[in-house]
């Protein structure tokens, strides 16, 4: 039996929703292998996350509660996942293509002698299992085949809906990773950007600003609009590099990928590296004072206008509309 193992992602015992998209991917892959979907949770105090995950139509949830897993380190997580995959007959191991997934999964692939697919957007059967993935900043989609018996996949979660609770619960089992400690790596700190707003990758509405906003203070315009719509906030690399906003806000080829219902690109030129992170949005609104800005090539609705004038106006008027 060729099972599919999903490595869950959580922050301090809070499930990250991207995991549910990875489960949907795993369910599709398991249809092709004929095996089960099992989930592995590594951490400290994660029995709650494990219980929660048991509701999403998976066959079993394993969790390894160990102080050594409290803070994520690839050097500890990877060998545990490799051991778990081997013990559970998983031939596919997957996880979201988050920064953790990107850091971790290649090490898992090396341990399983597996080929790895980055950013999978599709898995299907066509004379054998095939995957599709974007590259070249999303300007090319390739179809690939993994030639090794084991396969490791990072999942582009914007291309998969979240798995839904089924009403049933799967067995939840504690699992011993048999961890060996190392003296060549230490976790120091995780400085979380605290925010009341929805996570960018989950938000239904994303309001993003670019270098044209000229300062961090002016980003209050962006956050005010986002807050009226209950949205997340994002930015271009140029805005992050200029020190206007934290790196965690960067959307694009080398930042986050988002695909909300509604995306506002404000004072953003529309470089291909930025488009790579937001082109999948359902509705794109662009506000830019330059009528030739490339962002208008991909936007559904455009306003050629000064952001400093129209964004406050839009925010004010939307307040009464969304009430």
């Amino acid at each position, binding site marked *: 039996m060729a099972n599919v193992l999903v490595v869950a992602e959580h922050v301090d015992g809070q499930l990250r929703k991207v995991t549910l998209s990875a489960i949907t991917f795993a369910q599709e892959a398991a249809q092709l292998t004929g095996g089960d979907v099992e989930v592995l949770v590594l951490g400290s105090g994660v029995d709650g996350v494990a219980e929660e995950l048991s509701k999403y139509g998976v066959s079993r949830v394993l969790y390894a509660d160990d102080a050594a897993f409290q803070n994520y*380190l690839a050097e500890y997580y990877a060998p545990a996942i490799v051991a778990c995959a081997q013990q559970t007959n998983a031939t596919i191991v997957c996880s979201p293509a*988050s*920064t*953790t997934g*990107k*850091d971790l*999964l*290649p090490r898992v*692939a*090396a*341990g399983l002698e597996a*080929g*790895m*697919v*980055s*950013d999978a957007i599709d898995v299907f059967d066509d004379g054998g299992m095939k995957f599709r993935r*974007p*590259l*070249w*900043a*999303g*300007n*090319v989609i390739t*179809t*690939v*085949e*993994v*030639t*090794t018996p084991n396969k490791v996949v990072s999942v582009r979660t914007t291309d998969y809906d979240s798995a839904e609770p089924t009403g049933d619960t799967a067995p939840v089992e504690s699992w011993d990773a048999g961890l060996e400690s*190392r*003296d*060549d*790596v*230490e976790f*120091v*700190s*995780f400085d*979380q*950007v605290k925010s009341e707003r929805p996570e960018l990758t989950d938000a239904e509405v994303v309001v993003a600003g670019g270098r044209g906003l000229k300062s961090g203070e002016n980003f209050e315009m962006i956050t005010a609009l986002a807050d009226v719509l209950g949205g997340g906030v994002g930015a271009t*690399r140029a805005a992050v590099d200029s020190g206007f906003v*934290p*790196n*965690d806000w960067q959307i694009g*080829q*080398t930042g986050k990928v988002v695909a909300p219902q509604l995306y506002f690109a404000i004072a953003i030129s529309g470089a*291909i590296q930025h488009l790579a992170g937001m*082109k999948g949005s*359902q*509705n*794109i609104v662009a506000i830019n004072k330059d009528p030739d800005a490339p962002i*208008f090539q*991909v*936007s559904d*609705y*455009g*306003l050629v206008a000064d952001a400093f004038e*129209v964004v406050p106006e839009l925010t004010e*008027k*939307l307040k009464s*509309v969304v009430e």
Partner: protein
Amino acid sequence: MKILATVKRVTDPDMKVKIKPDQSGVVTEGVEYKMNSFDEYGVEEAIAIKEEHGGEVVVVSVGPSESTKELRTAMAMGADRAILVETDEDLDSDAVARVLAQIVEREEPDVIVMGKQAVDSDRNQTAQLLASYLDWPQATFAFDVEIGDGWATVGREVDGGTATKRIKLPGIITADLRLNEPRYASLPGIMKAKRKPLDTLTPDELGVDVAPRVEVLKFEAPPEREAGEILDDVDELIDRLKNEANVL
């Protein structure tokens, strides 16, 4: 301290790639190439580490013979010598990592600095695979690197904020975009680079089988988005979002 940095020759990231009619790859005629942007940050960091701690910077590329151009650029920036592992095949990340592992065995560097991803294949795997094959610790997506007492303390850009990790050397660091400002090659630097040593090897000579674990079968263009409409004012925008897109 011996520092190894890696360099990949990639298509100019600001040019739109075109796909061959037979879907076997991207069009290469008339295309400009340059050093992968993330590798520029990696090479810069390697040179900065040398400037602070002394030692030698060796740059390595795995790719076609034309990659000597990017290796010369790295040497013009300040790297001391270069190694090209020549292949005309488009290797997968795993093959590149196994080739690099052989180079590491020969060179025995104290630290390796690599770009976090290549802007053409966008895989973000090679450094982590290499670290795993060497059983070295890794610090990916670095925006800050401090080296001292045989350890590297690395600030990392991660989802949700930033993280700090310490790795004992030898170890691998991958560069993110805010790590430094890559220097330009100076004219004297370019002249000097022409005389710096550049060795060429092949995967065969290193005893590495480069057969892919991930085979690329087909290249396609993604569906195009159509440009929409330019609206008159905020009122019209709200009206359309509400009554046409139904998102308010």
